[in-house]
């Protein structure tokens, strides 16, 4: 009997200990979570749910409300998050230990709350799932802080993007400003060179006249037995011719007032200019390809000046092809920026859609060193040997084309050689 009493007493003690242990476990849980719910499981199915006392603070609903309405816990979950919560429940019912889940619920007062839901399985001595506990933490404040941070990050990124864009725009504007400044300096230089040229032309031409006529006198009167004399006199005549062509180039740079603008056919003018350099073309062993658009609209221009432009371009091209080659002259018309394949950045003064005429002079020569490209229109810039060029040909070209409200650009062609592109406004009147 005493053994029975002792056994009974031990059982009571054990039950007491288990109860105390469970209560301690719940107190512990309550201290680290906002609330705990317990789900009783039978044969792998959830049969009842009990929500701990902290649930009201988090959800707005009391334990009794959850008790009375066993689907309340599910309806409380925000619709988009329900599949994830069901998945978590299904996994634990299958005996798995799913990771904790963060999801949203709708508080009784209608507000949205974020909770972290951690499930802990409870198994019997045989390892069967008899229940599981859900540990709920209210993480609304953390989530809101995170969202604020994300928004701030997004705003910052957007600001950074805007800043980058502004910086790019500033850089582009600065580049444009530099370009304009450079062009202004060039224009000012050109103007001063022109003014200077006009001033000195008279002073230089008179001494040249004296030398030339001195040579005219000496040639028939010099001793014939010394052939060096003839050579020296010939060199002197060449020097006069060269000096004169420099002066002529400078005067062309300075000439502004005597442009006679008339509506004219650019193709006819190009044919005439080609005719004028025919002898040089033959001497240079160059073949000429003409691709002239037969429907080219007329252009308002000074025929003589534009002819000068093409002669200068042709002579340059011929000089670049010392071993012979092909000189291709192309004309076409179109709407600027729409149906014309030309670099829009090089011809910025034209408006999109403006009707223009384009002429290209392409050679198959040595091309232009990249470093020299920005300088080719500078007065006196030349890559030719001494005595071959004055360095004024392209300056004159630019000056004349600028005066016509047109633009000229020079680039190396992809297939070798250089290509000069000239754009003039078509005369629509």
């Amino acid at each position: 009997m005493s053994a029975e009493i002792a056994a009974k007493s031990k059982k009571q003690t054990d039950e007491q200990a288990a109860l105390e242990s469970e209560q301690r476990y719940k107190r512990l849980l309550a201290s680290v979570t906002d609330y705990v719910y317990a789900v009783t499981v039978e044969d792998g199915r959830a049969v009842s749910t009990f929500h701990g006392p902290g649930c009201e603070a988090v959800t707005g609903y009391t334990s009794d409300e959850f008790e009375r309405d066993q689907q309340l816990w599910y309806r409380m979950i925000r619709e988009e998050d329900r599949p994830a919560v069901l998945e978590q429940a299904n996994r634990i019912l299958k005996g798995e230990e799913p990771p904790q889940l963060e999801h949203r619920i709708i508080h009784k007062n209608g507000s949205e709350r974020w909770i972290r839901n951690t499930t802990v399985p409870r198994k019997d001595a045989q390892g069967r799932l008899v229940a599981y506990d859900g540990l709920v933490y209210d993480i609304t404040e953390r989530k809101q802080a995170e969202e604020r941070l994300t928004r701030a990050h997004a705003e910052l990124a957007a600001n950074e993007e805007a800043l980058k864009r502004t910086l790019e725009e500033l850089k582009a504007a600065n580049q444009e400003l530099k370009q304009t400044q450079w062009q202004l300096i060039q224009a000012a230089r050109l103007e001063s060179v022109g003014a200077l040229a006009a001033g000195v032309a008279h002073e230089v031409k008179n001494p040249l006249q004296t030398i030339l006529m001195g040579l005219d006198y000496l040639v028939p009167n010099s001793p014939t037995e010394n052939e060096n004399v003839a050579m020296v006199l010939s060199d002197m005549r060449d020097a006069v011719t060269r000096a004169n062509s420099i002066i002529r180039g400078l005067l062309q740079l300075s000439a502004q007032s005597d442009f006679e603008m008339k509506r004219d056919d650019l193709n006819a003018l190009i044919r005439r200019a080609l005719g004028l350099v025919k002898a040089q073309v033959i001497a240079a062993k160059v073949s000429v390809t003409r691709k002239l658009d037969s429907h080219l609209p007329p252009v308002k221009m000074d025929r003589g000046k534009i002819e000068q432009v093409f002669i200068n371009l042709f002579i340059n091209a011929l000089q670049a092809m010392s071993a012979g080659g092909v000189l291709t002259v192309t004309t076409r018309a179109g709407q600027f920026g729409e149906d014309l394949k030309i670099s829009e950045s090089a011809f910025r003064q034209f408006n999109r859609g403006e009707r223009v005429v384009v002429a290209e002079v392409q050679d198959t020569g040595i091309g232009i060193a990249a470093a020299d490209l920005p300088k080719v229109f500078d007065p006196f810039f030349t890559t030719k040997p001494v005595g071959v060029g004055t360095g004024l040909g392209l300056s004159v070209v630019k000056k004349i084309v600028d005066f016509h409200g047109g633009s000229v650009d020079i680039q190396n062609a992809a297939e070798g050689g250089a290509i000069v592109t000239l754009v003039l406004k078509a005369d629509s009147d």
Partner: protein
Amino acid sequence: METEKKRILVVDDEASITRLLKLNLEQTNEYVVRGENDSKRAMATAEEFQPDLILLDVMMPGIDGGELASRFQEHPKLRKVPIVFLTAAATKSEVYARGGKVGGLPFLAKPVEISEVVACLRQNLGQGTKK
């Protein structure tokens, strides 16, 4: 033969130019040349020399070529003497710019070879082309 030679008056302030024009032109045996470097004395020299043609520099100190040309053209004995401008001004428009009276008159742009000068003289003296 001397009487058949045409008389050319060269008015240019550069002495070397008048001197060399004289040497070169007289070498052709077709011309007698008088040089005048002072534009203010040009009228008197012309009256005295009685040229068949006047080669006239445009830009000169004192009286410029344009003004001088109009004075020659108003002179009863010189008005029919052809004038050819010899100018360092590069373009025709610059010659025109020196008064309408200059416009229309032939001109040679410096520097010019003597063969061109001779061709121009022949044309303006109605000599035709000899060579």
